[in-house]
């Protein structure tokens, strides 16, 4: 589904990713771990098409298509979803209205009829149970005044609604207490399917207790330094990142 070859990315003129290779197949959950400044969030944001992340080399194929050629919104409509580490607050834009617009943009892109208000509310009702999204979160402005936990739940809720082929969770566990973490993890687990791939970017092992990955990769200094199965995460938890860094210097967020 996703094939990253020798990806190099600059942020504000600084080389952060120095050649990343990663292959993700449908049905798989990959965890990308690494110390602060290793480049793991940069990888997530570059995949989502953030304008400040400049690709200086390599290629990314998403279902055989050149992902890097696509606008951020085309990527989303083609089925790439990123759950933000810091979801943006958007004053004055009603959350439900925004979700409906996003969903219909995608449906239109795929030649499906747009959902009307009734159909949409039905869908919302179905999906909101899973993440304990209440009516007030839907009627407020997007993320405005949401607590940290509400913001992350809202991200996963959007993911559940948009049903992406590839979901990238960027430090979704940061700032969550254990109850919120479980809620979010349940939401993500409910989305696991043989046709969907999930990339979980995280600093800590604890999210992986709840979302158990098929593969774990360690990023350090802008390079993949180790890949393995889910047991690698446990080893990292025990030993820290120091033994992998081998003198590779960290390079900023």
């Amino acid at each position, binding site marked *: 589904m996703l094939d990253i070859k020798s990806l190099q990315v600059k942020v504000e003129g600084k080389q952060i990713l120095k050649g990343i290779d990663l292959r993700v197949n449908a049905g798989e959950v990959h965890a990308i771990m690494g110390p602060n400044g290793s480049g793991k969030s940069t990888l997530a944001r570059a995949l989502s098409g953030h304008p400040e992340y400049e690709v200086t080399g390599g290629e990314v194929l998403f279902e055989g298509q050149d992902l890097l050629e696509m*606008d951020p*919104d085309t990527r*989303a*409509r083609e089925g790439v979803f990123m759950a933000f580490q810091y979801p943006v607050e*958007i*004053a004055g834009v009603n959350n439900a209205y925004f979700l409906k617009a*996003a969903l219909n*943009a995608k449906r239109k892109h795929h030649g499906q009829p747009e959902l009307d208000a009734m159909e949409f509310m039905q869908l919302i009702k179905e999906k909101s149970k899973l993440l304990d999204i209440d009516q007030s979160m839907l009627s407020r402005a997007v993320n405005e005044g949401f607590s940290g936990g509400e913001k992350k739940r809202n991200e996963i809720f*959007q993911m559940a609604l*948009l049903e992406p082929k590839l979901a990238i969770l960027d430090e979704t566990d940061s700032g969550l207490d254990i109850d919120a973490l479980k809620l979010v993890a349940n939401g993500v687990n409910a989305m696991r399917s043989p046709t969907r791939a999930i990339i979980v970017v995280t600093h800590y092992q604890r999210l992986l207790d709840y979302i158990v990955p098929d593969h774990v990769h360690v990023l350090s200094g802008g390079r993949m330094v180790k890949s393995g199965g889910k047991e690698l995460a446990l080893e990292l938890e025990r030993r820290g990142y120091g033994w992998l860094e081998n003198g590779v210097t960290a390079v900023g967020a």
Partner: protein
Amino acid sequence: MPQLAERIRPWLTAVDERPQGAPRWLQDLRDRAASRFGALGFPTVRDEDWRFTNISPIVAGEFRPAGPAPAAAGDLASIPHAGVGHRIVLVNGRFAPELSRLGSLPRGVRVASLASAVTEQADVVQRYFGQLADFGSRSFAALNSALASDGAFVHIADGLILEEALQIIFVAAPSGDARPMTSARVLVVAGERVQARIVETYAGPADMAYFTNAVTEIFAGENAVVDHYKVQQEGARGFHVASMHVHAARAASFTSHSFSLGARIARNDAIVLLDGEGAECTLNGLYLADGERLVDNHTMIDHARPHCPSHEIYKGILGGSARAVFNGKIVVRPDAQKTDAKQTNRALLLSDNASINTKPQLEIFADDVKCTHGAAIGQLDDDAIFYLRSRGLPYFEARDMLIRAFAGDILDRVKIPELRAGLEQELYSQLAKDLEEIDRQ
């Protein structure tokens, strides 16, 4: 301020030829206003209140009082909300009965041409007219007071609750004059406990150079609730200078919604005197400018009595090389303890060449008060755009959503559904043109 004699001379000629034949008191007022205008001349950018608004295109325009135009020339088609409620229409400042709709006014409500009210409601008019629009230091108010021969008069008797909105519509129309000026005048007297919605609209043809110089006086009696809407949608070559003067008596609640969408130069002054304990005012404003246009909003809330809250929020959307000025003055007099004043001013700059000068001006002479103000000027938030795009919304749709959210905050406060719909239509069709222009570059 000294004026170049040759530039002001044609204006003085117009003032010398001011309307005659009114009752003595009114003629006296016109005479005093005329001589005051002669002494003041026009303000220049050296006047603090006009520092960022250069009106020389108006002064150089040598506008002359507009002659009458056939009522049929008064084009209401450009006013989407024209059909709402009762309405009095004035073409080139003159009452146009054919276009007005005053047939079903409730008892106790009088809406009439000011020229006729001067004789038919002499006592009320004489008691209130000119009481608020002080021309001692305001040259445009002096010019208006010297020249206004007609306008709209609204009198609502104590205790009346008006279900339907009252509209006052000023339309500029070709009259054969090359540079027509209208001295628009409005007097609203709302008695005690009155509840009313008043919509004041200014419109004119897109291709005509003209000047509207308007003065509005509104009296809100004790416990009255007056919702005032001003829609300034003058033609692109029009100039608009207007001052609205409001007197709020004890426990009155006055709300102003100002929409400034048209004109090459627009200057709107809103001056509210909270002159009774517990009087309250809310000033909401939304303005839009593009191209080389200039829009200037000056507001002044005078807290003269204790326990008066005021809330103010003005928002602007600027494209092209448009410029805006916002000056929000709040005065709290020594007696006005427990004043609670909040002012917010925000502007969205859609292009790099657009600019705004904004200034809060607080003059506080009481000690137990709460006054806050804040201003935020900026372009669309890139993070917000990216967030919306990352969910599949195309760039243009994302931008549109953010602009509508910005303006919607003010539009949503409009309590007359047809008016809100009309304003949305007017605002968004104009914005669509601006954005198209921006995208072409």
